[in-house]
């Protein structure tokens, strides 16, 4: 890198003496470069660990805590915050189920109930499901790929703070009684200025803006980490399936989020400055919202589901003691699901009266998603068939996932057919369907993978017996809650009603659902309690308690701040199973400054050494500046103009070049 700059100096018309001076400086820098400390045969073991620790550790204290760019800290915060929102969303669900336990109930009332389901849906989709997957990935992906940091760690910190502020804004609004009440997909014109006066719908729309900025930032971080930061030798073909899933998901986020940014931006504009994008009376179109929203909203479901399939692949491999059958098939299935996800948004709109011929196409596309999903399920079952399954808690969740998710997938095939969907759409049948897909398909694997990666993150195992009890409670509670909903939907119960009349046959299924919700809640409490107690009392785990094959288990539990003393070299799909003793490593990274190794995209051949930015408060300040603009723009369009000032200052400071002096090797400070 320094040589390029030297060329630039040469090209400039300089006097002879000037050129000599530059050459002397180059020679001196080259000498200094040789003196830089790097890991290698001369520097290893405890001495290396101490040096690396010094270079990678963030400043102490509250400032350092806020300024951290360590992917493990950010990932942990992402996960804990998302779990907090999960609990809040769950409490909303409990309240709703109490209201619906009996017909003609007046426990909560219409207005409050409408806020509850809006908060439940928005929280679960935008503040729990997507962020928790990103959080797990931000924590584990660099470890799994054998690197020391994510790419763009400051952007990663910025992403977390944006997400946190968006969530706080939504829940702050709830506390202040200006929570949205228009449903998590906020159809226009109901959410427009005419039918939702006040600020409730604006709060919802701006929460979307926060989370989409956060998700886009995290997606950029993950995509570049997965493509450029893999350990040498980890070709795309050898990359773990979870990394593949996250790569597909990150690319899907990049393609789908602009669509929701556009439609929520137009909604805010309709509400704030009186444009008429969705106002039919002024030649706008109410359906435009649905097209744009579902063009994002349907991929969103796969953005939640695909990471979970990655979890399942990871757990199936470890607990069946063999690589997943058909690695390439699973990868192709992930990619084709990701592509198909963008071609079926119209199946959310079968009842709107669009042309029938077009519907047939979307029916076919929606059904065809079950081909790649069916392939993945076959590959997991074949792995079980050929392997030696061990029924530890994570594997129980895998079984629970298959038993549950397949039902959700099959009801998905049903609602893909137009004549069936016209009856089932917007009823409790659909509520049952998407909870089977999202809880069965994503939360079950997530609980399994928490149990699985808990020792890596904390250094201690979760209690096995309590884990099994909470699994069975989750499983029974889930099915008791959601299976009867298929029936209540067929018996004529539309979704989003705060009450239903007696005498339609809805009493029994609703009562069962309410009972099940409480079992499910007890199970989640037990799971969390198990986690908290195990944090202090759990069995010490050691680096690789499950005897797994991927690189995150090649370092201590919890991992040191620099992840690996030396960057491992990968020679197969399952490195820890294939290598006896120590993994082969590459050396030569700086230990006095933070530095990671970049490799080529496909073959993962060593490519560049990349300095890693130090901890910085600017991502936090930048997120605060942007957050203030977003919140203020709920109240006045001028916020977007005046907000340029704090945002400009924060980002200029963030990207301000710190060192103008030539350096033997440039470092980002």
């Amino acid at each position, binding site marked *: 890198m320094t040589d390029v700059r030297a060329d630039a100096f040469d090209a400039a018309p300089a006097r002879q003496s000037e050129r000599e001076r530059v050459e002397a400086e180059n020679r001196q820098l080259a000498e200094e470069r040789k003196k830089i400390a790097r890991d290698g045969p001369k520097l290893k073991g405890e001495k290396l660990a101490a040096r690396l620790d010094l270079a990678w550790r963030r400043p102490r204290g509250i400032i350092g805590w806020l300024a951290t760019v360590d992917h493990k800290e950010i990932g942990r915060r992402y996960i804990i915050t998302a779990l907090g929102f999960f609990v809040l969303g769950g409490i909303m669900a409990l309240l709703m189920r109490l209201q619906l336990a009996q017909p003609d109930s007046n426990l909560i009332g219409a*207005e409050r109930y409408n806020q509850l389901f809006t908060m439940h849906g928005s929280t679960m989709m935008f503040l729990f499901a997507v962020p928790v997957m990103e959080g797990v990935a931000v924590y584990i992906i660099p470890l799994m790929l054998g690197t020391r940091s994510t790419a763009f760690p400051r952007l990663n910190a910025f992403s977390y703070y944006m997400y946190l502020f968006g969530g706080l804004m939504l829940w702050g609004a709830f506390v202040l009684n200006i929570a949205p009440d228009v449903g998590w997909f906020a159809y226009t014109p109901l959410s427009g200025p005419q039918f939702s006066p006040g600020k409730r719908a604006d709060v919802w729309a701006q929460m979307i803006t926060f989370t989409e900025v956060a998700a886009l930032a995290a997606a950029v971080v993950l995509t570049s980490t997965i493509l450029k930061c893999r350990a040498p030798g980890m070709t795309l073909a050898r990359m773990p399936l979870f990394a593949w899933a996250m790569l597909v998901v990150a690319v899907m986020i990049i393609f789908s989020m602009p669509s929701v940014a556009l439609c929520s931006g137009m909604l805010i504009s309709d509400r704030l400055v009186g444009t008429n994008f969705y106002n039919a009376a002024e030649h706008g179109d109410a359906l435009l919202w649905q097209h744009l929203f579902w063009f994002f909203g349907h991929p969103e479901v796969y953005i939640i589901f695909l990471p979970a399939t990655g979890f399942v692949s990871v757990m199936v491999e470890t607990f069946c003691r063999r690589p997943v059958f058909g690695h390439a098939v699973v990868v192709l299935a992930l990619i084709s699901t990701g592509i198909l996800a963008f071609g079926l948004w119209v199946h959310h709109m079968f009842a*709107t009266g669009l042309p029938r011929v077009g519907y047939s196409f979307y029916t076919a596309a929606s059904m065809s998603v079950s081909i790649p999903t069916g392939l993945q399920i076959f590959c997991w079952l074949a792995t079980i068939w050929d392997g*030696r399954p061990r029924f530890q808690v994570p594997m129980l969740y895998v079984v629970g996932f298959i038993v549950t998710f397949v039902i959700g997938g099959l009801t998905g095939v049903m609602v893909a057919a137009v004549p069936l969907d016209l009856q089932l759409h917007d009823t409790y049948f659909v509520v049952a369907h998407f909870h089977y897909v999202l809880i069965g398909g994503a939360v079950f694997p997530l609980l399994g993978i928490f149990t699985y990666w808990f020792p890596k993150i904390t250094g201690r195992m979760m209690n096995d017996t309590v884990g099994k009890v909470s699994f069975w409670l989750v499983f029974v509670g889930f099915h008791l809650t959601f299976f009867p909903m298929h029936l209540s939907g067929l018996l004529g119960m539309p979704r989003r*009603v705060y009450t239903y009349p007696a005498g339609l046959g809805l009493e029994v299924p609703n009562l069962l659902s309410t009972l099940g919700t409480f079992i499910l809640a007890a199970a989640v409490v037990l799971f969390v309690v198990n986690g908290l107690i195990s944090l202090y009392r759990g069995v010490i785990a050691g680096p690789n308690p499950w005897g797994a094959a991927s690189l995150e288990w090649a370092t201590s539990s919890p991992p040191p701040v620099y992840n690996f003393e030396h960057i491992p070299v990968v020679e197969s799909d399952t490195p820890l199973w*294939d290598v006896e003793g120590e993994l082969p490593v590459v050396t030569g990274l700086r230990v006095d400054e933070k530095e990671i190794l970049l490799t080529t995209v496909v073959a993962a051949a060593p490519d560049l050494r990349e300095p890693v930015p130090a901890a910085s408060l600017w991502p936090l300040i930048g997120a605060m500046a942007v957050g203030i603009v977003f919140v203020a723009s709920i109240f006045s369009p001028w916020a977007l103009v005046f907000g340029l000032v704090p945002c400009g200052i924060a980002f200029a400071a963030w990207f301000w070049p710190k060192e103008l002096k030539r350096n033997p090797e440039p470092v980002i400070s």
Partner: protein
Amino acid sequence: MTRRATAILPLLLGACSYQHYQSAFGNAAVEDSQFLILFTIFLVVCVVMYVLVMGFMLLGFLRSRGAAEANVVETGRHHHSHPLMRTALIGWTALIGVGLAALAIASFFTDRSMAKAATGEKLSITLTANQWWWDVQYNSSDASKTLRTANELHLPVGVPVRITLASNDVIHSFWVPSLAGKQDLIPGRESDITIVPKRTGIFRGQCAEFCGAQHAHMALVVNVDSYPDFIKWWDHQLQPAAAPTNPVTLAGYEYVTTGPCGACHNIGGTPASGTVAPDLTHLASRRSIAAGTLPMSEGNLYGWVEDPQSLKPGVKMPTIGLEPGQLHAVVAYLETLK
């Protein structure tokens, strides 16, 4: 065969004891019968697929029982799956493909036959949704026979009906599960749905797209009659409202037609001619009050007129605060609007 299965299906689901007043198992129109046939086909195929998946998984566990004790791993380098497994993978993909193709074709033809059953409409109705009630208009080539009512549909059995759907405010969805699937009512767009009722009876429909605070209380009653009964009903509904006959109903008439009620409600043959609220000309002949919120009864009329906001919070009808005497007169008058 499928018809028998259709009949058994609700039994299987334990739903047999209900009247299917508002249920997709109602089977009361050609459209819903076709739904039930297609649903049964899908259910059978899905159950078969589910059993296959679960069977494969269980056999996999049984097969490898005890193998877990030997903590051996099979690494990527030397592990080769049985060639049969690859064949099975291809077979499985083909099975899914064929199954889906069959279901997609079944779905396509059901869609087609629904469209065919619905052609040749004999009756045209315009249904306009409002937050949170239904404005119903029976269209006729003879303008004097055009009929406007609210929150209740009467349909003749066996006659294809075309219902044109529109909305005055937000998106709603027309859904009478015993008769047919749903169709959205979207402001600025016109859609329609055709229904051929198969049997007489009383059914309940409900708005199926979230439309604001009182989405849950936006229902309508559908009364499927024999053709002569339907014509009789239509002719009766065309009559102007009954004139008050005693001092109490007269006082009620005075209040309703000259007081605040008439500004929003229409009562045929009286000065009350508002258009933004449900037509009340034959209110007492209907089965429910306030778009299915309450069954029609004297007590419920008292409750509703006195304080609609407590029974359907957020409804556009204000709580006026009538004197007891006025309330008594208004309800007495409304009860005469048969």
